[in-house]
């Protein structure tokens, strides 16, 4: 039985639609990440699941029960907020125990459960402190502690790491992943950060304009994006998009770029032969270029000769930018493979991994 099942959900703020018809099923124990750009409706969806917003249409089922008209506290959920939402007038112990006290839990049990949660998060030595005496990371741990102490069926996270600096965010991300492994609870996590989505999720639900653009495992969305939007959203640095035309290539298909460069498509793309001459967008990730043909995923490497415009070293790797088909394209190489700006080098593009996109609808062909 799915821990969460959403059918046909619609939510409007006045006349402005925020969620425009969402169906989602989350099996028990899964870590689902709702990700998307600002305004896509992910926070609204989460808050509607929590009961802090009311949906105009559709049903929300938690643990098999329809909860549309239930108050947040009856929905068997726990929530972690972006701004921690710690009560400044209570110490850490009282903050964590707050929900248990509200539900009239026996005092001895409160003590045990709070201490266990604190141990799990490494904040046992902070139980006497007030929130203002804690750092950002510590406050977030307390907020998480307050959620996990309640043994709820569903855990909701609303961009919990957005307020932390980059290093702390990396630490807390690992914490949350570890917690999920230890507790095995169903977690729904909202973020705009695609790295958080990729590293934490069992399943990613990518939202755009109030609708689900694509849902699947992180690798699914990364390797087999369904649309231009998905292809461009996940992956850092962003996928390169180059305008091109489909062309017959003797034995198979190829894409011809604006500057005449022709890149052959591997054999399994023969299905595109009916569309020869059609304008498309070629999508290829910076990671799918290499100086060494043997490194690529199989036959289907296209050889290129490119003139480097820009080099951005990051230590072990380097990002080089070069014009291809009239568009600036970025490739990620090992640092020792990169040359200087102005030099021309040979590159292999992994056409097995490339995607061909219909520029009209944005769908991947």
């Amino acid at each position: 039985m799915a821990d969460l099942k959403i059918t046909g959900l619609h939510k409007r703020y006045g006349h402005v639609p925020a969620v425009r018809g969402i169906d989602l099923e989350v099996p028990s124990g899964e870590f689902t990440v709702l990700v998307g750009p600002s305004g896509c409706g992910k926070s609204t969806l989460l808050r509607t699941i929590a009961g802090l917003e009311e949906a105009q249409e559709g049903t929300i089922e938690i643990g098999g029960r329809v909860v549309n008209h239930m108050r947040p506290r009856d929905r068997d959920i726990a929530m972690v907020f972006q701004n921690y939402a710690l009560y400044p007038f209570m110490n850490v112990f009282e903050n964590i125990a707050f929900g248990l006290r509200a539900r009239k839990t026996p005092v001895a049990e409160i003590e045990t459960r709070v201490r266990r949660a604190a141990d799990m998060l490494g904040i046992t030595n902070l139980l006497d402190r007030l929130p203002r005496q804690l750092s950002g990371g510590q406050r977030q741990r307390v907020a998480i502690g307050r959620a996990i102490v309640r043994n709820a069926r569903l855990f909701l996270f609303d961009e919990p790491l957005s307020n932390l600096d980059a290093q702390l965010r990396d630490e807390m991300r690992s914490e949350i992943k570890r917690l999920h492994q230890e507790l095995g609870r169903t977690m729904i996590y909202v973020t705009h950060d695609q790295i958080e989505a990729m590293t934490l999720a069992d399943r990613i639900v990518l939202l755009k304009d109030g609708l689900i653009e694509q849902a699947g495992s992180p690798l699914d969305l990364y390797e087999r994006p369904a649309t231009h939007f998905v292809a461009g959203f996940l992956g850092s640095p962003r996928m390169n998009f180059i305008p091109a035309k489909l062309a017959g290539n003797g034995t198979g298909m190829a894409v011809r770029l604006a500057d005449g460069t022709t890149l052959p498509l591997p054999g399994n793309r023969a299905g595109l032969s009916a569309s020869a001459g059609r304008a498309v967008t070629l999508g290829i990730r910076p990671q799918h270029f290499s100086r060494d043909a043997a490194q690529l995923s199989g036959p289907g490497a296209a050889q290129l000769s490119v003139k480097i415009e820009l080099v951005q070293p990051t230590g072990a790797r380097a990002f080089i930018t070069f014009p291809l088909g009239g568009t600036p394209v970025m490739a990620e190489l090992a640092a020792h493979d990169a040359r200087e700006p102005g030099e021309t080098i040979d590159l292999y593009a992994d056409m097995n991994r490339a995607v061909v996109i219909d520029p009209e609808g944005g769908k991947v062909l």
Partner: protein
Amino acid sequence: MTAALPAVPMMRRKGVRLALRYLIAVLLVIVFLFPIYWLFMMSFKTPGEIFAYPPVWYPKSLQLKSYIDLFPNGDAATVLNSLILAGASTVIAMILGTMAAYSLVRFKTGGENLAVWIISQRMVPPIAIVFPVFLLYVFFGWVDTYHGLIILYTAFSLPYVIWMMRGYIEDIPLELEESALVDGCSRWRVLWRVVFPMARSGLFATAVFTFIFAWNDFIFALVLTRTEVTTYTVQVTHYFGGQSNFWSKISAMSVLGTLPVFIAVATLQRYLVRGISMGAVKG
């Protein structure tokens, strides 16, 4: 000969300006505090000392007779009346007003119009409605009763309390309440466990001003009471006679009347300052 800066060196100029500022400050303090000091001293003077010329700045000995005289005939009991009336109306107004303010802020009850209408009630000058209210009270049989004045003071304080608490509640991050709702609180528990503690400074500041308004009221107490529920403000006026005034009683009564508010503000001082400044700076 060049026109140069005054020959006074910079440091001395600063010293003179500072001394001047202190002088003005001290003068202002004297001007504001002197009447209180005089009143205080007068309550401890003998009648002879009160009318002495040149004025007696400090009595030879502190006489308590003026105070003692207030007790046998129940004059001092009027201070208790004031305490009951102001205290009860403040408590009721604070509870009802804060709940109303919460409703206005979180549930947007009545939209913007209701909020403005409520504060507009405060614009009514009391003297304009005191006689219609009197007639109403005669009809209800509420003249010269405790509940009559408590209801009136509460009604008059509510717009102020609602307006002030609205501001303080708006400053409470919504996430705190949402977190409490998810954790298991009802709205009432959220109000009691989250809103009240968070708005504590604002609550105290508003309560003190509400109390002071009711405490100092004269016009309603004068018109709506007779003998049973005399407040200290009205009682003081009884000492102004046609031919002479009982200055010792006037001063002693006034001091007694000022004392409770003095103590309240002194003890709640730190909440007061925080509450006032919190209301001033938004966001």
